[in-house]
């Protein structure tokens, strides 16, 4: 008995050791490395966004890939941990990835130094350090979508419009996760408060923010804010919708940054009926009325399956599409420029910079990448909960772009 036990354990150990040495089969595909969080604190997003990414790649492959070259995605769940992400990045590199999708602000910061050294472009859509949009300083890092600075600009623009075009002297509350990502927009907000002369008060929520009654009570009952900007993620958004609702605060005066803008957040808060009027900032289109989504559904139908379940969560699904579409666009441009599928990270980096006015049938804002601007223009759009849907409450906007660009330039 005792010996059997020992033997079993030893065998288990040996097995885990041998797998370390065994390499997985390699094919001559164009490889993308994707770090995901399906089990960590941001899993609510990951479980929708990552499948969407795979779906889009599958769609492109079904149409023959990129000029005949198939695309292969190596996905690794990092659980929002830094060491796991470092290991994942090394694995991507080993598999020959020409572009890597990063996930999470701290992980992005830990991997960024490697990107430049290894000359592999990495993307951080909607997260990471906002200053990283500065392509001069970080040539291989592409935030690819509105950074937290740009989101702040867009948010204030929207608030101003909602409050009748003038926010001088108005009270605006900023409720945020008390971590670096949460604090990121503060410099922009403070600058805009000076420019527009509104009163800004900050309310920090310690992550993961399962309980924030007091702060919401403070905003609604003591501070009595005219408008609330919120920047939470994970569980936070659903909780804050509920709390604002319970305090009797009109959700029309609440605008969430991009990570509190999904159907999952509305569901968590108790469903559409309870979230009427809630405003959500987005950097990709929301809803299912886009040609690319129909094509994916058709692809599933051909295989005899119903469309992907995740598609019901349009916000995060469409963001997955955005990430995949931009990646593949950059790779396609690289392949075209090179004339063959034998491309490197540097080629793809140039591919990114060659992307101009890429909209993919309206699901994306008109993306333009330049040397200084790696966020594609910093576009965002507000969608509002009305009935059982998110409906657009604004057009694609870029608020205070000059301020943001100025800050980008100052940073280096």
């Amino acid at each position, binding site marked *: 008995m005792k010996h059997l036990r020992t033997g079993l354990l030893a065998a288990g150990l040996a097995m885990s050791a041998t797998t370390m040495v065994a390499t997985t089969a390699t094919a001559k595909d164009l490889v993308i490395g994707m770090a995901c969080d399906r089990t960590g604190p941001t899993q609510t997003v990951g479980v929708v966004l990552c499948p969407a990414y795979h779906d889009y790649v599958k769609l492109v492959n079904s149409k023959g890939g990129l000029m005949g070259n198939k695309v292969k995605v190596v996905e690794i769940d990092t659980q929002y941990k830094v060491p796991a992400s470092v290991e994942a990045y090394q694995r991507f590199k080993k598999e020959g990835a020409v572009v890597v999708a990063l996930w999470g602000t701290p992980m992005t910061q830990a991997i960024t130094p490697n990107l430049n050294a290894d000359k592999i472009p990495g993307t951080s859509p909607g997260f990471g350090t906002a200053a990283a949009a500065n392509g001069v300083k970080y040539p291989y890092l592409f935030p690819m979508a509105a950074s937290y600075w740009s989101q702040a600009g867009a948010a204030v623009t929207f608030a101003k419009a909602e409050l009748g075009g003038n926010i001088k002297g108005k009270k605006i509350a900023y409720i945020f996760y008390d971590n670096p990502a949460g604090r990121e927009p503060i410099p922009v907000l403070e600058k805009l408060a000076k420019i527009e002369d509104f009163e800004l008060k900050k309310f*920090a929520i310690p992550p993961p923010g*399962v*309980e924030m009654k007091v702060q919401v009570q403070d905003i609604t009952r003591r501070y009595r804010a005219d408008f609330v900007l919120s920047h939470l993620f994970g*569980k936070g958004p659903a*909780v804050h919708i509920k709390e604002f609702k319970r305090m009797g605060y009109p959700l029309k005066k609440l605008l969430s940054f991009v990570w509190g803008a999904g159907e999952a957040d509305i569901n968590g808060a*108790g469903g559409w009926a309870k979230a009427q009027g809630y405003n959500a900032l987005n950097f990709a289109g929301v809803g299912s009325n886009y040609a690319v989504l129909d094509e994916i559904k058709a692809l599933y139908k051909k295989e005899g399956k119903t469309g992907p379940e995740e598609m019901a*969560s349009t916000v995060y699904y469409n963001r997955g599409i955005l990430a995949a579409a931009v990646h593949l666009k950059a790779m396609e441009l690289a392949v075209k420029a090179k004339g063959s599928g034998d491309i490197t990270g540097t080629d793809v980096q140039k591919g990114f910079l060659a992307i101009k006015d890429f909209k993919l049938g309206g699901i994306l804002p008109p993306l333009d990448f330049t040397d200084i601007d790696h966020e594609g223009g910093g576009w965002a759009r507000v969608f509002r909960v009305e009935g059982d849907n998110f409906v657009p409450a604004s057009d694609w906007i870029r608020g205070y772009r000059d301020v943001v660009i100025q800050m980008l330039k100052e940073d280096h």
Partner: protein
Amino acid sequence: MEWQFLFELTVNGLLTGMMYALIAVGFVLIYKSTDAINFAQGEFVMIAAIVVAGMAVKYGFPIVAAIGVGLLFMIVFNFALERVVLRPMIGRPVVSIIMATIGLALVLQGAGPLVFGAGTRPLDIGVPDEPLIIGPLFMTPIDVVGAGISIVFLAVFGWFFMKSRKGVAMRAVADSHMISMAMGINVERYFALAWILAGVVALLGGLVWGSAIGVDTQMAALGLKVFPVVILGGLDSIIGVVVGGLIIGVCEALAAGYVDPFVGGGTKDFTPYVLMILVLMFRPYGIFGKPIIERI
């Protein structure tokens, strides 16, 4: 206005504190009777809520039936857990038991979404969202309901523990497994009872908290609220849980309302821990905890 806000904060802090107590009491229960330290209490609450919400939302069960399924699940699950995982761990060092329950927490984190799907779900137990305003009092209904459930349960449980013969036997088991066995007490049955009771409390906690904040794996973070509560009150005291819960609830509310503005925020989650350390320095076994009688 300021005094009214202070009053509101305090009242809501007290209500929230009672709801914390509901989570913490499961921890105390297990610690008292089996000496095991359950770092997975937050996960228990989470998994109970996930089962109920999953049955209700994904499989369309009426809420009462879903709660029934949840109750059954928690009883069976905790019973099995005690048998398979915790019983072999009896007599091991504290740190090993902590680690085992952390392992358990990981398993639950992985299993919850696998069975019922990831993402946040609502859990509607029929409590309205509109605020309750009674004179100067401003409360949210779910807090009132939650605190009410908590008080009723704790009162019943406290009576059982202190006064009934079974309660005395349970405390005897907590005191010494070996002597209890020698006295004809079926120790294993009381272990199972403790875990099952903890499962039932977790379900109550899951219902209240799930209804308050929505259901997903992040709910498990509530488990971190348990520690200051139980340590402050004393690990093995039911009254301690209530007092600890109330103190922590109010302390959090006041920290967020009055300390945050001066230090740039985020003090709410860690002030309870600071308070806890201060109390520990003067009362190393919490306010109501029993000191270990040291002899040489």
